[in-house]
């Protein structure tokens, strides 16, 4: 019993459209809420070398392109009736978690581009930031497991 080609690629592509939108959405939330509204950290920190600036620019560009790409991928899946919502939601939470943890671990700690906030004890902020990322990762993993089980069990 061969499945039609379009539904066979549906779950994986639904997952990836969710991942793209999750990364783009969390990056946008970071920029809008923390950079611009709260102004806890800024898009430019004077002590940051030019190379980090370019990496920040690449991250920013990826965020914009990921949002647009994810939306068109989702539209394409909906059009061909290959969209699998549960895989999409799993991907979305995994994408949200991926950005949050990348920002919290690589940007804040490894590269030290910026911190969550300045002039306050940073440990609690870092813990809140990365635990939120872990929680999102857990939700995404659980959704993914449920989606895979449901798919193996058949519709």
């Amino acid at each position, binding site marked *: 019993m061969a499945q039609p080609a379009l539904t066979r690629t549906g779950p994986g592509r639904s997952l990836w459209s969710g991942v793209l939108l999750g990364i783009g959405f969390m990056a946008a939330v970071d920029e809008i809420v923390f950079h611009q509204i709260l102004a806890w950290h800024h898009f430019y920190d004077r002590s940051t070398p030019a190379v980090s600036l370019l990496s920040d620019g690449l991250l920013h560009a990826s965020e*914009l392109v990921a949002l*647009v790409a994810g939306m068109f991928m989702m539209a394409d899946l909906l*059009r061909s009736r290959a969209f699998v919502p549960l895989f999409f939601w799993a991907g979305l939470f995994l994408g949200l978690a991926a950005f949050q943890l990348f920002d919290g671990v690589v940007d804040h700690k490894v590269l030290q581009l910026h911190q969550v906030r300045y002039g306050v004890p940073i440990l609690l902020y870092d813990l809140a930031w990365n635990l939120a990322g872990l929680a999102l990762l857990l939700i995404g993993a659980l959704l993914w497991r449920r989606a895979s089980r449901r798919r193996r069990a058949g519709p």
Partner: protein
Amino acid sequence: MAAGQPEAASGALMHAGHGMGTPSGPGADLPLLLPWGLLLAAAMLYGGLATRQVRAGRGWPAARSIWFALGSLLLAVAFSPALTELAHADVRAHMAQHLLTGMFAPLALALAWPLTLLLRNLPVQLARRLMGWLHAPPLRLLTSPVTALLLNVGGLSLLYLTPLYALMLHRPLVHGLVQFHVFAAGLLYTVVVAGIEPVVARAPFALRVAVLLLGTAAHATLAKLLYAGWWPHGTGNPPGQLQQAAKLMYSWGDLAEMLLAVLVFWGWYVRRGRAQARARGSAGQNRAVTSPGR
């Protein structure tokens, strides 16, 4: 009286301190009006060619003409003598001009398919020869997304990270050339990255997305460098003004790049839909037998 207005304004600007020699006297406004003249000529040509297509029964989508009108309007605002005068003194006005000529007007004009319209109106022999040139190695190299990216980002870096910007304020000819380059490079970049006009050989999707990423990143990075004060000295602009200009470049540039990204992926969506329709069409008879419900 109307002609006296910009002169009075420029006098005040000179007083404000970048010390450039603004040409004055009869005919001084002519160079400022030259872009408007060229724009009017282009609009008349486009309108005439589009009308010819419709009259000949071959049709020309109204949406494309509307995009052309919008693009021309944005350019007319960007090249207005008032904004040009203001841009010499206020770097925020310069940035608005840059965003209009280099990003937003090209987006609208690319959607107007001007090259396709031109080729459709030419005699077949000449159109074929032009197509041959477009697909020959030298022009193919020019219309590669990588070249367009280099011309675009390279030009901007030269303008902002060298004394070129200061020079431009003193030399009307340099100013004109820079404006033309910003517009031409912006239009080329938009057309080849979006892959809009089929008469230009369309680059691979992955390459266009990669160029889009790099271009967006470079634009955002340049804006941050300007914000940080890497701007060349000698322009006499107060730092607060420069930072506001950099923020304009950052946020409005983002919007333009995002619209370009929409064009890139919209093209992907349309072509994918056609491919799926073709696949369904050829597999139609088989599927009607094996899976009637779906």
